[in-house]
């Protein structure tokens, strides 16, 4: 299959060579420079011995270099997976042939290819913008995305070359209105959200700027960006910064957010402090954008997440997986144009891809006749912290390994901004002296992505007669303890609200 995405970058490099393609807060790279960078990286990758059909991990912090490597691998027909240092363990889940890394990563389980500045710097003049001679099959895997997953357990989603092409089209439609030229993308390239928005921007000949949420406002102002893309968590951080130190972001025409259901208090603050045109999305790594709508369109509809898009088929089904009438409550399932599929490593040399027609995100919902999708909740106890799904069991199991904790249970509790937080109730051994800072430190060290926002000591964990945790009662119990200890029933926005990046779009 023709590599439309990267070849189009080369097309823009011929057609509008000096137009900005990709930037960070301090650097702008034009289409000509990006194309040259991709060609140079391509040479280095060939020299490393990687070939079409292989899989390469990318452990490169610098977003522009990271993006050039993604493009070069795509052009060579090599599947890529972007990883963060704290995701290195996930490499065991994928059959990776080599990791391209810009720093020492001692725990990497496969061959590491060192990436340095020479990969991107021009050597002997301009390289010719020749067409790629590699033609991978449309069903070959082009990209793996590590997702927090609908089960709260990390999982690997594969996107074929066909899926990537189809996502370019669907994300181009999602970004079509209002018109724009420059986009600031807060989610990083290791998320589906960041990856899809970034590749679509350059596919359309526009500029994408990568900036963490702490610097997103400066990036918007510096580049007079028209569109901002963020997870719910990240935008909550921007809202807090705006409340503390307001900066007018007048160039923004629209803000796209996704990650989790956004609630009225946060939406109102985003519209007041960042941009009035707010587009809320619901989706997943597997399906891409499933539904979205302007925030105003969702006003008055409890738990509405948007209008289902024309590139997905959404059905609500009963317990026998039979579709039920519009307006009825049931389990949501999705079949999408550009669908990704779950990838599982089976043995040291084999992996399988589940290519089912339908993807079940594990949400309960209602689909109305006008396409409006309402998500009423989860079919399980997963906590969705602004897009990062956390299985409470993983926290509970870890807590119980810490000395002096007899029992533990975790629940999701909404913050005043409408972002779900992780609260942990623990029953302690009275003979042991437990210090809270030590508990938090243990979580930060061993489970940095699942550090609870609150840990409260309770007399016992509410359980039913079968011993199953009654999480609704636990929520109530923890709220009472919170009220007693801090004098407030709700939560203030904590640092944890704005850490990490959402995988849902």
């Amino acid at each position: 299959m023709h590599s439309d995405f990267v070849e189009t970058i080369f097309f823009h490099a011929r057609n509008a060579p000096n137009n900005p393609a990709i930037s960070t807060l301090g650097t702008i790279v034009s289409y000509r420079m990006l194309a040259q960078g991709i060609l140079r990286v391509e040479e280095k990758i060939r020299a490393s011995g990687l070939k079409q059909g292989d899989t390469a991990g990318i452990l490169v912090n610098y977003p522009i270099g990271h993006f050039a490597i993604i493009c070069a691998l795509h052009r060579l027909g090599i599947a890529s997976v972007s990883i963060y240092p704290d995701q290195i363990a996930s490499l065991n889940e994928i059959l990776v042939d080599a990791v391209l890394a810009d720093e020492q990563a001692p725990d990497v389980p496969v061959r590491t290819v060192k990436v340095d500045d020479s990969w991107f710097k021009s050597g002997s003049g301009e390289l010719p913008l020749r067409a790629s001679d590699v033609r991978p099959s449309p069903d070959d895997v082009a990209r793996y995305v590590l997702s927090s997953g609908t089960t709260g357990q990390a999982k690997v989603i594969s996107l074929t070359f066909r899926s990537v092409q189809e996502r370019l089209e669907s994300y181009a439609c999602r970004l079509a209105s209002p018109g724009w030229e420059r986009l600031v993308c807060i989610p990083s390239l290791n998320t589906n959200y960041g990856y899809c928005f970034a590749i679509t921007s350059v596919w359309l000949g526009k500029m994408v700027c990568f900036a963490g949420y702490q610097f997103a406002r400066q990036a918007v102002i510096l580049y007079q960006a028209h569109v901002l893309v963020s997870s719910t968590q990240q935008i909550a951080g921007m809202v807090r910064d705006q409340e503390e130190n307001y900066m007018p972001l007048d160039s923004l025409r629209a803000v796209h957010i996704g990650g989790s259901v956004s609630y009225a208090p946060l939406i109102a603050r985003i519209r007041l402090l960042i941009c009035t045109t707010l587009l809320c999305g619901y989706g997943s790594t597997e399906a891409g954008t499933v539904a979205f709508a302007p925030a105003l369109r969702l006003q008055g509809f409890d738990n509405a997440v948007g209008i289902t898009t024309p590139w997905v088929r959404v059905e609500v089904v009963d317990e026998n997986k039979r579709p039920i009438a519009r307006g009825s409550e049931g389990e949501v399932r999705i079949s999408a144009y550009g669908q990704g599929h779950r990838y599982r490593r089976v043995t040291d040399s084999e992996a399988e891809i589940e290519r089912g027609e339908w993807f079940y995100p594990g949400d309960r919902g209602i689909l109305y006749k006008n396409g409006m999708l309402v998500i009423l909740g989860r079919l399980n106890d997963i906590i969705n912290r602004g897009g990062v799904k956390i299985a409470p069991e993983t926290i509970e199991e870890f807590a119980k390994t810490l000395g002096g904790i007899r029992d533990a249970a975790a629940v999701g509790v909404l913050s005043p901004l409408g972002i779900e937080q992780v609260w942990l109730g623990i029953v302690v051994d009275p003979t042991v002296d437990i210090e809270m800072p030590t508990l938090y430190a243990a979580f930060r060290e061993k489970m940095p992505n699942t550090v609870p926002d609150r840990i409260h000591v309770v007399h016992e964990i509410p359980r039913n007669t079968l011993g199953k945790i009654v999480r609704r009662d636990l929520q109530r119990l923890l709220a009472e303890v919170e009220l007693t200890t801090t004098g407030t029933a709700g939560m203030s926005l904590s640092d944890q609200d704005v850490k990490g990046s959402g995988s849902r779009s």
Partner: protein
Amino acid sequence: MSISWVDSLTFHANLTPSKVALVGDGIVFSYSQLAAAIGVIEHRLREAKVRNGAFIAVQFDRSLEQLVAFAATYRMGLSFAAVPAGRIDWLADLGCDLILTDKLLSYRVTGRIQSTPVLVLGDSWHRTEAAAETDPYPPRDSEIVALNSLDKWDQSNSATVITRGDLDRRVMGLARLMATASTSNRVVTSVDLNSTTGLLLAMASFMLGRTLAATGKAQAREVIATYRHEFLVATASQLEDLANAQAAIPLPLNTLESGLVLLERGVSADWVDRIQSLVCPNLHAAWSAPDFGPVTFQTARRLTDATCLGYIPPWIEAMSDDAGKIAVRSAVGPENEGGWIGTGRRGRINEDRLLFLD
């Protein structure tokens, strides 16, 4: 599977119902009104017991009805051909299952076409009749759709038969060019919506959720100045007329941020400079083959040779044979499995994929 332009239109009708979709022929249609109008025709066709896969000939005085009728037939999985108002005789030759027309033209048809049922829409059909409730994105079994518009009839009296997927990809291709070339929402065009290009342009505009104003070239400047449109799509000769009019009596067209010129021939650098200074500062250019859609695309300021029609983008494969005949095909998607499509033009393609016409 592909992203359907009608499904996109329905989506925007649910997403931003009051946003203006189409202005033209003295009518303003919001997205919800347009979707409702499509629903009305769909309802009428169902009442007329039209079956999936049937072939509908459409004859309307105004392009708006034609566009809405096409959308309705497309949604229902029917085939469609538009026939010029003056060519009643062609209707008889088509072998269609039903003729859809308006009250004015129905007088010409009635009695002259005996064998085919005629469905007549009243004067205010889109206001007075309730739309049927349908699935937002209904499944469509029929894969064949015949797209024919009035300019095609001028060349030959045969329909262009393409599949639904091909049509959607063609619309997506144009939508992609529009999204690349423009940074704004309000589109104005002086391209006739009765032409194939006009139809595709309207579909692409709906796919992107844009506002499209269709205007004759004589009124284009007044429309832009009054309604503050931001993106212009016009043929090279239409742009030339606009520039001449601007040079004589300037009107404030300063809201026009960008434009897409549909090339009929190569243009010189001076020509581009003149258009960019008088009409629209940021101009992109595309050349389309009649049965294929856009073949070249680029920023107009890089057009420096009057025989050059621009770069062939990577999503299109092109070749010229020994006689110099140019043929094209899509490099992406199932269309690639099909054969080459002749453009009817001669020329050459250089190693940078620049297309030069003889």
